[in-house]
């Protein structure tokens, strides 16, 4: 099976095979992430509406439940034996708030999340030694929890903006891994 290339073969009306390549050219001049007005507004709106106490705990709990290998990073958290124990664990709830506080920093500095997260990235790579692939798992759980909280307001377009924001957050957290 092929890799992740985005080649699209189209057969045009004359039956000729044309090969269209869809590959983004890296923009050498700008290192900043560009946010549209809609994206900025959507991210601010999400974070103004969600309940931080609920979302942080719920997202981290789901991550520990759905992807149980992530529990390896929380050896000091006590009882994580089953879903009920995880969702009622006070250390999980407290750490959920820590995560939300970290995300809030990114929301307040959307134009340079990479610099804002430099120390956090070093912390996760050198001290906590977290496999960065796990960041995507937490991001997915966060998306699902936010979707549940926001309901119909979490339209595909809003979902797309949130997805982009989390992708930038994850990339920034991965930045200092060497």
């Amino acid at each position, binding site marked *: *099976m092929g890799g992740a290339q985005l080649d699209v073969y189209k057969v045009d009306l004359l039956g000729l095979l044309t090969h269209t390549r869809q590959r983004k050219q890296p923009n050498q001049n700008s290192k900043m992430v560009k946010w549209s007005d809609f994206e900025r507004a959507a991210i601010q709106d999400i974070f103004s509406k969600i309940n931080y106490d609920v979302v942080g705990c719920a997202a981290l709990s789901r991550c520990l439940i759905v992807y149980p290998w992530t529990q390896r990073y929380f050896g000091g958290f006590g009882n994580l034996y089953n*879903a009920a124990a995880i969702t009622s664990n006070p250390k999980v709830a407290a750490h959920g708030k820590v995560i939300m506080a970290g995300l809030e920093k990114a929301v307040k500095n959307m134009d340079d999340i990479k610099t804002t997260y430099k120390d956090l990235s070093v912390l996760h790579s050198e001290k906590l030694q977290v496999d960065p692939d796990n960041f995507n798992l937490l991001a997915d759980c966060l998306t*699902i929890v936010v979707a549940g909280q926001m*309901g*119909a307001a979490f339209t*595909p377009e809003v979902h797309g903006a949130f997805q982009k924001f989390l992708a930038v957050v994850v990339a920034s957290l991965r930045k200092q891994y060497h």
Partner: protein
Amino acid sequence: MNLTAKDKNTVRTFWAKISTNAEDIGTDFCLKIKSFFPPFFRMLVVYPQTKTYFSHWKDPSPSSAPVKKHGATVMAGVADAVAKIDDLRAGLLSLSELHAFTLRVDPANFKVLSHNILVVLAISFPNDFTPEVHVAMDKFLSAVFHLSLMST
């Protein structure tokens, strides 16, 4: 990916609860509750690289016939997989061969579709989509899509 008996029961129970709406999740329900958009269309919007497999559709909007039809086809496939949960490999063999050898879909895209199904379930059934149901559905969809691709 091994589904335990508990996982299978959780999936069956949850699916039975929502199954009067399962096809609706694919099509009309979403138009009734305008913003609930089906998982398939949501995936096309949030992960535009998936649109490359559907370049033969002129209109990729949620109300277009091919998107509605394919959304319903996908959710019907998932419903079928629930019914065949005790032997997914045999049950999904022909779909598996289709996606692997004819459509040749990059495996990463199935994980993306799976995520979008879970997001729509979270939106549509916030009280029923508990962490226990979430993990069972995640494992189930992983098993379904893993088998949809790795037919050899």
